[in-house]
């Protein structure tokens, strides 16, 4: 099954949505079969045969029949509406429990910024959350912001989509019941590289999640190196932050723990030294239209910067 299948939900909001969809689909499927059968029957049974000279009996209408096919659909609509309203209420009116993980998601033109205000972590493109045991739920509540245009956070196996709109903070929540990697994609056209603005949600066991949190809270151990000097003396620092160094830019992803991530460029490429080097020298080769500029570094400097970034664990 596809890794983004809406038919394999692992989180309460996605499960409720699938439930109501199947309910609605079953009812309308029955209606479809009944009405379509009537149409086919009418088409076959009442085709003109033989003489065209005689007219069929003319019937101009019937109040009873009209009432029947008004009232019955109204009742069906009421049933469908109540079922849907209940799901909307159960998802949107959920209160935030004390132990919920809080994450502030900020959409940027073609990447995701994740901040955990209570844990004091800033990361990008790969969201880590703990698995939520239905007996002792530890849901994750996301506050959705945008730094530029409209985006939409949609990981189909976890929840329905919710937009990230500038000046319009939104909320959503997930409580994944399974560990694993769940994929998604920006679901609101946001500009040139909307297509490569991929979502990766890592659902971890509580122990793994705690270890990840601990690692993210440490400063990376980096020695002085040629690459570090190049990084700090070029435009890299205007957009990127590396904690504990003069690099404090906010326009691009935080690189403090770059090597803890599996991918670069918001999921567009694997985080290997080759791809990282290519990304620094020519971002358009991986993600044409990305806001990361080709840095125009010499071969030597580019390799040095790559080597430096490789130390950011």
């Amino acid at each position: 099954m596809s890794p983004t299948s809406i038919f394999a939900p692992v989180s309460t909001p996605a499960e409720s949505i699938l439930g109501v969809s199947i309910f609605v689909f079953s009812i309308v499927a029955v209606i479809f079969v009944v009405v379509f059968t009537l149409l086919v029957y009418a088409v076959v049974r009442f085709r003109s045969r033989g003489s065209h000279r005689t007219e069929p009996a003319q019937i101009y209408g019937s109040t009873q029949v009209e009432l029947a096919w008004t009232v019955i659909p109204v009742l069906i609509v009421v049933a469908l509406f109540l079922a849907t309203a209940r799901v909307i209420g159960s998802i949107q009116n959920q209160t935030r429990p004390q132990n919920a993980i809080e994450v502030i998601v900020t959409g940027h033109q073609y990447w995701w910024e994740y901040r955990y205000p209570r844990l004091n972590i800033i990361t990008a493109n790969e969201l880590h959350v703990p698995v939520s045991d239905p007996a002792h739920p530890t849901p994750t509540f996301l506050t959705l912001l945008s730094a530029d245009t409209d985006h939409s956070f949609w990981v189909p196996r976890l929840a329905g989509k919710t937009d990230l709109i500038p000046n319009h903070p939104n909320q959503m929540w997930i409580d994944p019941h399974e560990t694993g990697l769940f994929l998604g994609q920006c679901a609101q056209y946001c500009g040139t590289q909307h297509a490569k603005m991929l979502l990766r949600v890592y659902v971890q066991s509580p122990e793994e999640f705690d270890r990840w949190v601990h690692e993210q809270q440490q400063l990376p151990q980096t020695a002085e190196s040629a690459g570090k000097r190049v990084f700090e003396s070029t435009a890299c620092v205007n957009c990127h932050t590396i904690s504990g160094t003069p690099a404090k830019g906010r326009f691009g992803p935080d690189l403090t723990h770059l090597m803890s991530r599996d991918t670069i460029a918001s999921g567009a490429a694997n985080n290997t030294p080759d791809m990282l080097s290519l990304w620094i020298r020519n971002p358009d080769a991986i993600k044409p239209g990305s806001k990361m500029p080709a840095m125009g570094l010499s071969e030597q400097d580019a390799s040095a910067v790559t080597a430096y970034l490789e130390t950011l664990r």
Partner: protein
Amino acid sequence: MSAQTIAISEIPVRPLTLRLHEWVTTVDHKRLGILYVVYGLLFLALGGIEAAIMRLQLIRPRNALVSPEVFNRMFTMHGTTMIFFVAMPLVFGFANYLVPLMIGARDMAFPRLNAFSFWMTALGGIFLYFSFFGGDGLYGAGSAPDVGWFAYAPLTAKTFSVGHSTDFWTLSLLSSGIGSIGTAINIITTVLCMRCPGMTLGKMPLLVWLNLVMAALVILAVSPLSAAQLMLIVDRYLGGHFFDTQAGGSAVIWMHFFWIFGHPEVYVLVLPAFAFASEIIPVFSRKAIFGYPVMVLATIAIGFIGMSVWAHHMFTVGMSAGANTFFVLSTMAIAVPTGIKIFNWLATMWGGKIRFATPMLLASQDVAASIAATQTAARVIFAAFLISPGPLHGLRAGLAWIRALLFPCAEQAAEAAGYGSFPDAQPRTPQPAQIRSVTAQTTAS
């Protein structure tokens, strides 16, 4: 016919330029109707090319046929073209041609407004496609708009959309919007004020009723869209902050403005298709329409409810649970009048003597498509289901039906339809009186 044929052949053939000039300066509703349809079909070809480019790009993963920028332009241009310069002109073309004939009027109420509206719509299409050459202004190579046909703010702000591509999109929708509102006023006035003696609203052909509701929806829906275009121009050039989120504007307001146009627009497109079905099915079943007053009421109900469903395009933007629930209810409720229409068509066919000439084949497909679409009305795939097959089959059925009415080659169809055969002496283009008798037969026989 022989006497008339001779008379026509005696008229000297006029030069091509003169005949073209007549088409450009015409205020005749039939000619304008034909112009609308031809214009719509021309843009159908352009929109089709854009769709083909998108499909070719998507034919395999990581295809490099077009760049991301070009792909974004293609889906923006395709969406805008198909809605504003294919579907709307086709709808207006049929309304222009048929409404005056079917109510026994000499022409539309405001013939010159009619011509003005067509040429404003035409100007809109020219603006849109000129963006390929002029979009980037003096900055470099030309480009078409790439903000999506919904053009969500703030992607359209100066910050994110440099050059003039968004301006051409805005001007295009503004001028075609003026044309649409003009035509809608014209249709409403014509229907309300120019019906022949004896044709009360309760005796009016269903096709005219549905086009009347369509025109009312156009006025209600296109006006907010045009207002939003003006606000966008103010934002981009006069320092306004309606949608400029960086200065405190609201992106969500744009979405409301757009979809309070965008959803009623779906009914603007589908009602004329329903209109054809409501004329074709009785004729080719040789039965009067079942439940005429209920059909009229259902149409008006679709018009009213159709104005209250727009935010079902916005379930993801973070409205309150109460607002989302309301729009679920209104969206589901519209299935009731739509269902009534389908059941009435079925009841009209029931017990009839159905003859499957081309118009009826297409009309039954339209009913089938409508059944499928009604079931999925609450879904995101609504657009793909209802906009494509519904109006498409309906309009094709309409074309075939008009051909059957107008041209002698369709005599058999007309005979089967219960009109009796067309007498040979009839001119090729029916006069209002004939259409009137035909439609009176259709609705009241």
